């Protein structure tokens, strides 16, 4: 027993050759966010508050694909989505298609607390944000030069693919293109448990580079990208479509509930069996303070800490 926290900044084909100027700021951000989370937990903030706080920090950091730094749609715009869930009450909130809300995760919390609904999307969600007086900015705030470049590369790669006529090339799906390999399919997330066993999970993302306008991924879908109940809290990242199909976050909890597996066994089975290799990573904590951070991709930006003093910041397999 004891508190525990884990967070991620996306799983994917992160090359081992990732240059220091791209690696170090991300590691620094993970360390900073972990510290904020640990401080909040030790000052007895509720896990729900902790995961929101940490994900806000991750959203505000342009190095990860959420909030500022979100990747761009095929039209060059940003459409952000997020989801939050409280383990004990199983209350949850989700948002999609945000274009001006600074912290998508906080709007999802407001959907959970201030509406009779769980999930608001697009214009209706933006209107709700204004009604609630949450901070909004011009959509251009979220767009970084790096992501403009990424979109350009993705589009060029797509054009090349269309130009090729070989059947093999036709099989290349648009979402499998990874022009520069790092954080293409990134998402941020945080899970936390306090020493009383209260759990919460939160996930936030800008989605997929060059995604179609209106595309919804796994992040805002309860049971896919995000889930928490009285046993565990889970935040997943990777190829959204595969995570939706695998109901990844719920299945970790379901295996614990229905098969009596430990957190680690359940998470390992889901990452190993429910989703094809190269598609998923997740962070999870259990009510008893266990942590696990498995992935079947090349790497996952991740960090965790537990009350008994274990702490870790990592990208690839150790």
């Amino acid at each position, binding site marked *: 027993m004891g508190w525990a926290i884990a967070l991620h900044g996306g799983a994917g084909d992160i090359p081992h050759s990732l240059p220091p100027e791209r690696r170090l700021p991300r590691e620094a951000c993970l360390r900073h966010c972990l510290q904020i989370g640990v401080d909040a937990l030790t000052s007895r903030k509720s896990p729900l508050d902790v995961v929101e706080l940490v994900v806000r920090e991750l959203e505000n950091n342009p190095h990860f694909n959420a909030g500022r730094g979100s990747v761009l749609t095929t039209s060059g715009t940003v459409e952000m989505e997020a989801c939050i869930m409280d383990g004990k009450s199983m209350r949850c909130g989700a948002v999609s298609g945000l274009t001006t809300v600074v912290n998508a995760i906080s709007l999802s919390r407001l959907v959970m607390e201030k509406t009779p609904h769980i999930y608001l999307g697009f214009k209706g969600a933006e209107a709700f944000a204004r009604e609630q007086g949450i901070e909004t900015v011009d959509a251009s705030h979220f767009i970084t030069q790096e992501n403009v470049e990424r979109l350009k590369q993705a589009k060029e790669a797509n054009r090349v693919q269309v130009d090729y006529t070989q059947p093999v090339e036709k099989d290349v799906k648009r979402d499998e293109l990874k022009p520069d390999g790092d954080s293409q399919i990134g998402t941020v997330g945080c899970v936390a448990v306090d020493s009383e066993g209260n759990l919460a999970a939160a996930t936030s993302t800008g989605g997929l580079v060059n*995604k179609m306008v209106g595309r919804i991924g796994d992040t805002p879908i309860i049971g896919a990208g995000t889930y928490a109940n009285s046993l565990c809290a889970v935040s997943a990242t990777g190829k959204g479509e595969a995570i939706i199909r695998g109901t990844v976050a719920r299945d970790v909890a379901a295996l614990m509930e229905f098969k009596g597996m430990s957190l680690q066994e359940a998470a390992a089975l889901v990452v190993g069996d429910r989703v094809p290799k190269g598609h998923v990573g997740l962070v999870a904590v259990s009510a008893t303070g266990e942590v696990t951070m498995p992935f079947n991709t090349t790497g996952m930006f991740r960090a965790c800490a537990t009350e008994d003093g274990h702490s870790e910041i990592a990208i690839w397999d150790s």
Partner: protein
Amino acid sequence: MGRGWAIVIHGGAGVDPNLPLHHQEEAKKLISRCLSIGVSALRCSLPAIDVVELVVRELESDPLFNSGRGSALTEKGTVEMEASIMDGPGRRCGAVSGLTTVKNPISLARLVMEKSPHSYLAFAGAEEFARRQGVEMVENEYFITELNKGMLKLAQEANSILFDYRVPNTGSETCGASMEKPLIMNGLPISVYAPETVGCVAVDSQGQCAAATSTGGLMNKMTGRIGDSPLIGSGTYAGNLCGVSCTGEGEAIIRGTLARDVAAVMEYKGLGLQEAVDFVVKERLDNGGKAGIIAVSRDGEVACGFNCTGMFRGLATEDGFLEVAIWD
């Protein structure tokens, strides 16, 4: 090879016990008609995924239930429809939300599954995809019925969210009476109202399962509200073992990941189909949440379960079982 085809259809759970008889008859007639369309298609060896799409299209096109034409209205008096479809083999899936001009949302969900790199498209982007795919589009007016305009007026006068076929009622003999801490909407527990989504699950003679769900959502809902119907694992799920479609209080269904859980308890606890449905209705709906579930297994079994006053439903199997019912 499977052990025979089977199909189940629903037109929503949580039926007003005082629903006039002629409405009940109309609903049964529609379900019978759609059921026989599905049965004929299965007899002609159409794959399950085609059958569920075909049947849900029929349900959408008829104004009776809350999907397609006849959808519930948003607080602004518009229609915003959503749907999802899932194919058991390979667990392929497609979903749509926030549609305003697409005549058959379920068919657009199918196109998202087959013609886009994504699983889920919503609002303006989904509409744009629909135009590019050349699916049938109509004015938003087409979906709006006089009956629903009246219902919206009623809901707005009560300043509340209203599901189809239900009028605000503060009496204790309602679905929401058992809630310990009911979510109060302007003085009324939200669960006194019941929704009316449509859905179909089928297994073909090859033993392949599929599921489809379509809805207009809640009466007087906020624009932008997304419910359980388009969410894979909540309103809709299909895998190798079974196909599942849910209806009821969307928010309770989402929290309970009901559709996935029917499959999960079969997979992880070894329960049979009906046992799985009963387990999920009993154990996975929190705070007195009300819902109904229909399901088929790859072995050609059918099952349904609900914990509210009734569910519009029709069931048929290859070995001759046929039932169209509303109440317990």
